[in-house]
């Protein structure tokens, strides 16, 4: 309700401001709108995907220079130049993203600083582009005879773009593609484990952000109609990131709030320092950002949402009348789903897993136990392809996956939970579980932006709710996952793994942090799943829980298999007692 009112207010403002605001403020608002567009790209890139770029101003610069060149030299109209300038920006983003986005997170921002500097020097040095003096006489946008020359008409154009991007971005962030982008924040392992291609998803977010910067660059050059390199220098790129840090990187409106503040700040400082030089605002920006990030990282809009929860985006709608998702065929009972043969893993000179061979069949629960450091979690990472084995062979559902990409396991129907919980803390429990169903959906980024994905989203949400009901967390599904107790978070991971419709479920210490009754309920659930034909492999330290649950045990010690068998046999095995009790007993 409050959100509707605010949207109404924004639309009213959009209509009346051009008639009321004095020319100076109108110009300032136009500049703020352009800055907000760049910021909106960073909301997706930094706020959602957890990547950072200091080079957005350089993308805007590429678009601006392509537009200026095409309109002044090649005789294009402003509108005809738009597709070309966006194409140029997209190509640049694909090239730069292509060489940087496979690397871990911090390489991207440093690289963006370097190539933003390079692109800026290029603008300043190329005589073709006017060098330091720049290009003048750029024609305005004209639409069937009407020319966008006045501050009013530019305001309408710029802010129409901003509002349209906010609307579509809000939809996108809550869609399947948006969840994939947001899952990047949980680390590459989380995303890949549910079939989200990390590099491609990063590249998508990067190109999306670059295209918005490109649109901003095009609007800028058409608004100012004169072009020199200064607005696209590295300081400008840094300020673009500050915009979303101050406004709130997790919210599209954060870009608007940040842009408004940073556009107004120089004016305010000019008044306060009575028109001294510009270096005070550099110092002010720097100090404000440091203080802000030391204290709170949610920005202005984040603080407002925390104070007034009614402002938060509404949760995922759950309707009962949705088509069921396709399910995998249940394997024949007793079919071998996992076979590890002589698997070995070396980390440098350390052997974490040595000559491990075992099988897991459909319709059984197998426990993988062993003292701390026995190599159980490494074994999990080997099975799911998170790390490649140094030797040996791993077969999942009949397919050889040795050394395959992490997405292979989930595609074959093998899903997992993590020893160290990997949930998106800010996202709702339901959305976290829906990430598990990623591969059961089809819709991409465009369908998400324009809500052409409603039927599929409803089915995914219904499936996620069904899994949450199974683990007993349906009543908290709209709460942020980070607000749950650790035990409950582990159950969310179980639900997320189930949402992928697995035939083999790998659970890494699912019962840690659960209360006694919760453990009993979890055991009950796993028994039900087994009876339905699923296979479960779990690592667990709680021996009471394990012994009453599993059909078979595999015991690891110092990276190698110690023994394997029925729980009673293993419990009676002297060697097992020795490794657990250190041989004292």
């Amino acid at each position, binding site marked *: 309700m409050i959100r509707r009112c605010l949207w109404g207010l924004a639309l009213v403002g959009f209509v009346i401001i051009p008639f009321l605001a004095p020319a100076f403020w109108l110009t300032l608002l136009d500049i703020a709108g352009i800055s907000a567009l760049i910021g909106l790209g960073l909301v997706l890139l930094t706020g959602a995907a*957890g990547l*950072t770029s*200091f080079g957005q101003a350089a993308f805007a610069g590429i678009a601006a220079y392509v537009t200026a060149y095409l309109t002044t030299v090649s005789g294009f109209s402003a509108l005809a130049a738009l597709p070309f300038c966006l194409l140029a920006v997209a190509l640049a983003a694909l090239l*730069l993203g292509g*060489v*940087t986005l*496979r*690397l*871990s*997170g*911090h*390489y991207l*921002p*440093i*690289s963006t*600083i*370097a*190539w933003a*500097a*390079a692109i800026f*020097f*290029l603008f300043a*040095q190329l005589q073709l582009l006017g060098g330091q003096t720049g290009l003048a006489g750029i024609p305005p946008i004209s639409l069937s005879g009407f020319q966008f020359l006045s501050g009013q008409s530019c305001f309408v154009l710029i802010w129409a773009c901003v509002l349209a991007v906010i609307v579509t971005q809000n939809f996108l962030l809550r869609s399947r593609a948006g969840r994939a982008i947001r899952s990047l*924040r*949980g*680390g*590459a*392992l*989380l995303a*890949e484990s549910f079939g989200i291609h*990390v590099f491609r998803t990063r590249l998508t977010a990067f190109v999306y952000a670059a295209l918005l910067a490109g649109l901003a660059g095009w609007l800028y050059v058409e608004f100012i109609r004169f072009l020199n390199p200064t607005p696209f220098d*590295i*300081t400008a790129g*840094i300020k673009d*990131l*500050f915009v979303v*840090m101050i406004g709130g990187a997790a919210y599209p409106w954060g870009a608007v709030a940040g842009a408004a503040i940073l556009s107004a700040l120089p004016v305010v400082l000019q008044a306060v320092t009575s028109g001294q*030089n510009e*270096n*005070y*605002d*550099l*110092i002010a*920006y*720097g*100090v404000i*950002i*440091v203080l802000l*990030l*030391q204290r709170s*990282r949610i920005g202005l809009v984040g603080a407002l949402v925390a104070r007034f929860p009614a402002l938060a985006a509404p949760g995922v709608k759950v309707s009962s009348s949705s088509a069921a998702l396709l399910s995998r065929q249940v394997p024949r009972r007793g079919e071998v789903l996992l076979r590890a043969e002589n698997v070995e893993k070396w980390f440098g000179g350390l052997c974490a897993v040595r000559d491990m061979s075992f099988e897991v069949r459909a319709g059984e629960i197998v426990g993988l136990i062993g003292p701390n450091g026995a190599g159980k979690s490494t074994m999990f*990472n080997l099975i799911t392809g*998170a*790390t*490649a084995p140094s030797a040996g062979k791993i077969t999942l559902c009949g397919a050889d996956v040795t050394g395959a990409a*992490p997405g292979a396991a989930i595609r074959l129907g093998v899903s997992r939970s993590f020893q160290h919980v*990997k949930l*998106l*803390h*800010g996202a709702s429990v339901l959305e976290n579980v829906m990430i598990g169903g990623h591969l059961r959906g089809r819709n991409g980024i465009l369908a998400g932006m324009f809500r052409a994905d409603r039927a599929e989203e409803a089915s995914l949400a219904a499936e996620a709710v069904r899994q949450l009901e199974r683990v007993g967390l349906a009543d908290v599904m709209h709460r942020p996952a980070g607000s749950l107790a650790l035990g409950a978070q582990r159950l969310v991971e179980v639900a997320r793994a189930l949402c992928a419709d697995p035939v083999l479920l790998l659970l890494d210490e699912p019962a840690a942090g659960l209360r006694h009754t919760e453990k009993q309920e979890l055991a009950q659930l796993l028994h039900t799943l087994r009876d339905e034909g699923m296979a479960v492999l779990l690592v667990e330290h709680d021996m009471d829980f394990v012994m009453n649950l599993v059909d078979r045990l595999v015991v690891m010690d110092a990276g190698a298999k110690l023994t394997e068998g029925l729980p009673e046999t293993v419990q009676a095995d002297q060697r097992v007692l020795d490794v657990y009790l250190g041989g004292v007993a």
Partner: protein
Amino acid sequence: MNTTIAMLLIQDGLTSGAIYALIALALLIVFTITRVILVPQGQFVTFSALTFGLLQSGVMPLTAVPVAVMAVIASGLDVAAAPKERRWRTLRDAAWRQLTWPLVLLLVTFSVNPTGLGIFGQILFTLAVVIPLGPLMFRLVFAPMADSSILLLLIVAVAVDVAMGGVALLLFGSDGVRTAPLLAMSIPLGGIRIHGAVLLVLATGAAAMLGLFLFFGRTLAGKALRATAYNALGARLVGIKVRRAGQVAFLLAAALGAISGILVSSIMTVYFDSGFIIGLKGFIAAIIGGLASYPLAVGGALVIGMIEAWSAFYNSTFQDVIVFSALVPILVVRSLLSPDLATDEPAE
């Protein structure tokens, strides 16, 4: 192209390469120990070069003022954080430990005529006033958020750089500075003359690297730092003070930056915003070493210096464009060497 020009270019490349190597080493020390990607490293170079330059031209720089301001804020924070009954004692200790040095610097600033210091006095004063900026920066900015993600620390580092750029403009103005060579001699070698400035840069660079090698390899403090870089939690468990390690890392970085600044001021004109680009080139060298390998970073720095010297000869207009574009092939190689997914740090 003849041998004489080639020799000159190699000399240029080695000289700037040695400077970038010092920067790259500082960046690596700070990154491995504190996970901070120290974008403001170049500012230490600028502050030092301009402080020294002003001293040489007989003007007393006000570099001690920001040092004093930061020290006052730091001790204020210490006192505020102390329990009520111990506030006086904390204040006394803080005043003694943190404020004495800035006070001495301020006294020198406002009472001494720079020409009376002599060249060694000027160098010493420059080092004395620039080096404290490192630990103070760590104390005020990075120590309170030491547990944050690399990404967040990087954004903060950029913010610090922006603020320091503003301070540099206030302190030193927008005029460039170039000092007279420290060693007014040159030796002939194969048809060209090797200038004293070049020899000094190379000798200082080699000495600094040797010093670091001995510090990290032979002293307990150095080994403790290496342990922190390897595993901060493990280091804490065996009694190494991780916060102290961060302070030492920033001190070393500021010292390397200050030394580079004095050296650089005699081989190029330094402006208030030159540090950023110099620092960035150090970064590219550090990236060649994967932000982890010291020898690769030094080698990388020399390569960057060479690329710069040769591109300056062939196409001086696009010199920086060429140097920064060299990053692309480096990143491609790094991509091919990238590690397992399991080691990737989540953003949350």
